[in-house]
């Protein structure tokens, strides 16, 4: 028995000495509690915010392309995949997986910005200017993503609507239960972040892969246009135009925006590379002989007809209805995202042409026509005269057309039609589909607290 005791003591003491045994460290992870603890890690977390924008389910591909399908420029191909088919048929349901992924990916970026902003006040080894710059960029990203969630899921055209989106500005726990805020509260939060970013971001930073001061101004210009504040929309657009940092390329070089990238026409462009690829090429082109069923987003014949009615428009060159495999129709494909080997196509977050078109819209039919014509002429078209746009409605249509010609397959038209309440009038798609349904999973997870959009 004595031996037994000795052995037991030996074994117990052996294992008691191994208290740390159950602590494992992952070689590929950092504990979130301490991950952002100094200037260098704050800078790394900011890079992470940009990186999370690159997700193929959001800005790395589907953010723009889902909008294209829902706004009428794109049709869907691919295998018989119900969620994709729904986009092509413009019959999205709350169960749509692509929309669900979009929602989650956008809020993921917001989480990254919130955690960075939460950690920032305790970081003391950064020069004040640099700390402000990080804060400014993080808040600008947070505002941009909130605004894009609002554009996709909230009644962004109606300041009195209760159906805004949940605004998330603090690190979330599993117990947090944020509800949908009102649309006006959404705009207030977005504008507050952007206004702060305007003063925080270092104005000497000009790299357009990141959000610069002009990037914030251009976002503000867009947000005010959606909000209906034309004066402020005009003011921020003008501020960007007057910086002199950006220039429109000539008609012959329009395609360089897409094959050279980071041109003078971009205000904010998400840059990809061969080892960090975007989904655009795979979703819209694939390979030369690809048939429709291999490609998720093909060009709708409507877009072809539209360009055929605009003789001289050099932007038509980036739509191909001729050289593709015609076995299974329609065979149209955008040429904006070519480069099958590297698949490093950019996401065009903010382009300079939009500033002129916003200003043209904000200034109205008489004062704005010059800006609209500036773009038209630059793209190989003739200038419109006042007689060509005799009414406000005609002018509005000319602007919508210009946006369609300029930004097709970049994810603009759906939101333009929604904010002008013209989705049904122009495309025949029911107006309630101007926004997506809230994903069914979100409603289940919130036990019904998050309300569904009207009509779904």
């Amino acid at each position, binding site marked *: 028995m004595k031996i037994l005791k000795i*052995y037991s003591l030996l074994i117990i003491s052996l*294992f008691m000495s191994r208290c740390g*045994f*159950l602590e*494992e460290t*992952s*070689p590929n*992870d*950092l*504990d979130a509690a301490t*991950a*952002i603890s100094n200037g260098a890690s704050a*800078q*790394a*977390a*900011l*890079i*992470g*915010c*940009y990186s*999370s924008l690159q997700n*193929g389910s959001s800005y790395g591909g589907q953010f723009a392309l889902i909008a294209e399908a829902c706004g009428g420029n794109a049709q869907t191909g691919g*295998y018989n*995949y*119900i*969620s994709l088919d729904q986009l092509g048929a413009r019959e999205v*349901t709350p*169960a749509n*997986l692509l929309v*669900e992924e979009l*929602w989650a990916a956008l809020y*993921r970026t917001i*989480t*990254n910005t919130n955690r960075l902003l939460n950690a920032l006040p305790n970081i003391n080894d950064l020069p004040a200017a640099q700390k402000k710059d990080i804060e400014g960029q993080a808040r600008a990203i947070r505002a941009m993503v909130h605004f894009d969630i609002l554009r996709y899921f909230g009644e962004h055209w109606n300041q009195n609507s209760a159906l805004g989106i949940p605004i998330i500005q603090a690190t*979330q*726990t*599993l117990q947090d239960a*944020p509800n949908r805020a009102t649309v006006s509260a959404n705009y207030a939060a977005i504008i507050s972040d952007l206004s702060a970013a305007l003063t925080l971001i270092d104005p000497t930073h000009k790299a357009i892969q990141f959000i610069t001061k002009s990037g914030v101004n251009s976002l503000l210009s867009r947000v005010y246009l959606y909000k209906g504040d034309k004066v402020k929309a005009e003011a921020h657009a003008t501020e960007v135009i007057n910086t002199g940092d950006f220039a429109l390329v000539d008609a012959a070089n329009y395609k360089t925006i897409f094959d050279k990238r980071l041109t003078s026409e971009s205000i904010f462009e998400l*840059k990809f590379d*061969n*080892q960090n*690829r975007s*989904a655009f090429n*795979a*979703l819209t082109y*694939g*390979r*030369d*002989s*690809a*048939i429709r069923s*291999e490609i*998720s987003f093909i060009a709708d014949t409507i877009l072809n007809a539209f360009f055929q009615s605009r003789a001289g428009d050099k932007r038509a060159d980036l739509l191909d209805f001729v050289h593709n495999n015609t076995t*299974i*129709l329609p065979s149209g494909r955008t040429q904006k995202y070519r480069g099958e*080997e590297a698949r490093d196509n950019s996401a065009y977050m903010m382009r300079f042409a939009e500033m002129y078109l916003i200003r043209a819209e904000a200034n109205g039919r008489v004062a704005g026509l010059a800006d609209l014509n500036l773009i038209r002429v630059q793209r190989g078209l003739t200038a419109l005269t006042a007689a060509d746009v005799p009414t406000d409605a005609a002018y509005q249509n000319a602007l919508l057309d210009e946006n369609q010609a300029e930004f097709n397959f970049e994810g603009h038209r759906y939101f333009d039609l929604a904010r002008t309440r013209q989705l049904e009038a122009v495309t025949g798609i029911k107006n309630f589909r101007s926004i997506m349904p809230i994903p069914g*999973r*979100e409603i*289940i997870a919130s036990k019904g607290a*998050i309300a569904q959009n009207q009509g779904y």
Partner: protein
Amino acid sequence: MLFGFLCFSNPLIAQEIVVTGTVTEADAGETLPDVNIIVKGTSSGVNTDVFGKYSINVKPNVTLVFKYVGYKEQEIEVNGRELINVILQPQATLVSELVVVGYGVQKKSQITGAITSIQNKDFKDQPVSNLAGSIQGRVSGMNVTVPSGTPGAGMLVNVRGNNGPLYVVDGIPLLSESQSALSTSFDLQGKSTGSGQTLSSVSDINPNDIESVEILKDASAAAIYGARAANGVVLITTKRGKAGKTEISLNTYTGTQQVGRMIEFMSSAEMRELVEEGRKNDLALYNKDRRIFGDDFDPSVLTEPLLGFEVAKSPNTDWLRSVTRAAPIQNTEFSMRGGNDKTRFFTSAGYFSQDGIVIENFYKRFNYRLNLDHNVSDNFTIGANISATYSKNRRSFNDDTYTGTITNALGASPFMPVYEADGSYSMFENYESSWLSDNPVKSAKEIRAFTTGNRLLGTVYGEYNIAKNLKFRTSFSADVAMSFDNQYKSALTSDASAVGGEAHEAVFRNLTWLNENILTYNTTVGKNSWTFLGGVTEQRTQIERSSATGQGFPPGGLERISSAATISAATSTGSAFSLLSFLGRVNYDYAGRYLLTATLRADGSSRFPKDNQFGYFPSASVAWRVSQEPFYTNKLFTDVKVRASYGLTGDQEIGDFQNKTFYMPSKYNGQSGIQIRNLSDPNLSWQVNTMLNLGVDFEVKGGQMSGSVEFFKSNKTRLLSENIVRGTTGFSTVTQNDGEVQNIGAELNLTTTLLKTADWKWNVNFNTTYVKNEIKSWSRDNVYLNAFNDLEATHILRIGAPIGSFYGLKYLGVDPQTGDVQFEDFNKDGVIDLNDSQIIGQAQPNWFGGLTNSVSYKNFDLNIFLRYVAGNQVYNIMRSTTENLGYGNDGGVGSIYANNTKNVLNRWKKPGDVAEYGRASFVNQNYAQNSSQYIENGSFLRIQNVNLGYTFKKLKIIENVRLYVEAQNLYVFTKYKGFDPEVSSNGGSSDRTAGVDFGAYPQSRTILIGANIKF
């Protein structure tokens, strides 16, 4: 009188004789060492030596008693004979059969939990690479499913409704995950869509090296493995050396495999007729009501000539037969087993080779084992086990997914040839079969995906008898697994044509080590006997993975990453977990009548947050051997034991590093950064299963029949699951403890000898199991799940329904007037859409079991094994493509989305037709993918194995030779329309999304001949 007696007896004492002989056992005729031989009525006796020989000095008229554990005692009157060879009959009774339990061995009569034990003879020589495959159907309560026919593929093992038991090989818990660092399934964007086929970690163990397999099914038996025993435990014990003559055996078989059940597709003429009929039907509808087709519909696709559909010129390609073949399978192994009273050994080497029934696939395995035991002294034994395996596998690319070789061959156009006239692969783009992602033969040949693996399992142990009845055992074990994946897609494939060829390579390395220290103490006081067991174990697993992807390859066979023009991706990562456990057990036995077992295990796991690392798993069980009571007189039931047990087991299978919220590496614009990876629930802790088991073991007429009946109720609580959470947290799912699932069931096991004469022997074994599964609670009800991430919800988690419930529209058949397929308007809103979805079936069977008949006549023996499963359904979603009634996926004229099966010949053609299939249509889709149209009965009865052998005895140096012919998966009784009702295209490792057939690798029928030679 007294003198007389003495006088009579004296000469006899003087006439003591020497009796010698050999003791063998009846089954295989092997000699038995250490058989105890005593003179009846005395305590004097001898033991047989290592060769089973004995020699004893006795009086010529005494009776000798031969005793050996596990065999019937035999009494033999000497009657003056000097040579007595004895054959001992095995005692297949409760009384003395030995059963391996966790950290020990017990007599079957003393077992208080639910344990099934099966021996090597029950599963040897089957043409399967995986142990789980060879015990399929032979264990009540355990349902083994083969989700795919891929050589070397993993199996799905379900114990009493719970998937994925813990495997323990000679005391070493095996890794549970697939031994490969790469996924084999990619979508068109090159994103991984899952691991496709999994490679099983037990497939590295040669089934014929295994002596016995014990399945611990209830909490009493399994709780000693606490933390990882929630889904049952499979104890695998390999063969060990025996003192005595060295046994040498050679086992070999060779055979051929074919697709078990084929799916027949339409000929070119039939397909053209279907498309034409569909266009005609659509045109008639269009003329009646244009609104159905939408505003911008151009009816010319219904009237223009069908181009490229010329039946006369068509090659009428039978694609399934183009990608499948008759494939050889063979296995050869050599083993030796022997030793003396100090040292014993078992060693074996084997080679298994299986070609896939899909072209180009194969699986090869070499394995080697050495098990050694040595007595250093009477009190001290040491030993070691080493097993090494090398395997090489050419995998079927995208196996079990919708872009795989088989999936593509299902539905490929009969108008498309395999090769063009110039010998090049035909391009599917030119043949209107838009279902394809590539020419199936081309993707089978031009995508070369190999996995090679090395595995080393080793243990050293020492066992020391510290004092009488007190034993200490310590062991150190290591499980080293390495695999190398190498996948090359040539520039001819549509996956890599744009980039000039693409290769993925990956290295996976795993090291698991384990140290176990166990102290055992026995004591007997009067009729009370006690066994105490206590122990401490620690285990650590460390995994390293790295991979690289390159594109742009030169011609001429340079296919490794170094030849790539560009490295497009590279990763390197790792993970680890550790477990620290304390365990204890008490067995109490009163007079062999009242039995009690209590266990407790405390497990600490690094996978949980710091405050929740330890879980405590107790169990208790009692048994009463009624037949041992003095008052028991029943002559029919000669042995009866009643058992009851209750206890807790746990589960920690959530993957490493969910215990905290983590940041992961991330990059942008050539700069490195960090972003959030997960959200951790600080309350995350062990899943706990409670299980109640009631059982009766019985024996009829001293062993003519024996069996057991079990009832169980298990509740899995605090389930570890990927719970859906608000997307506003930044995550759509979080690993949490949530929900409770209940399995209630019963098992029956019967073994009987129907016939036993000198020449004839007929044994029957039958087992059957009933399990009913139900979700009792979940914080979120009606959670939709997708078997594939681009299918609509195929499954639902609903409180009150079983796990793995299928979800979709309810199909009401074909309208005889219009030929429309009809669905139930479940929500009564007047519109049929996905909102009308409801539960339309379940993936888990309620009933399963097996029946073995073993008949022998003289030297012939015949074994027929049947297996059945009932009460489940299969979601054969592949049919929404291959039975789409000619639908062209609105691709315009000349589009065949996919060829249809011959079943569709039985379709609606004119009003009044009562047909199984609806009206053909080209544009106006007349089917619904997620509907009970494609739900099929999953029940089947399978002739799993038939084996007929003949044994020759004593041929010169050969002790005996058995020659046999065998058929595996000879026939399946089923009406299932796919390859095989036993299927789970996504590997099925999650029971929540199991049971979907999306073009899985077909199952094979194998015919072989073999020989077992013993020297």
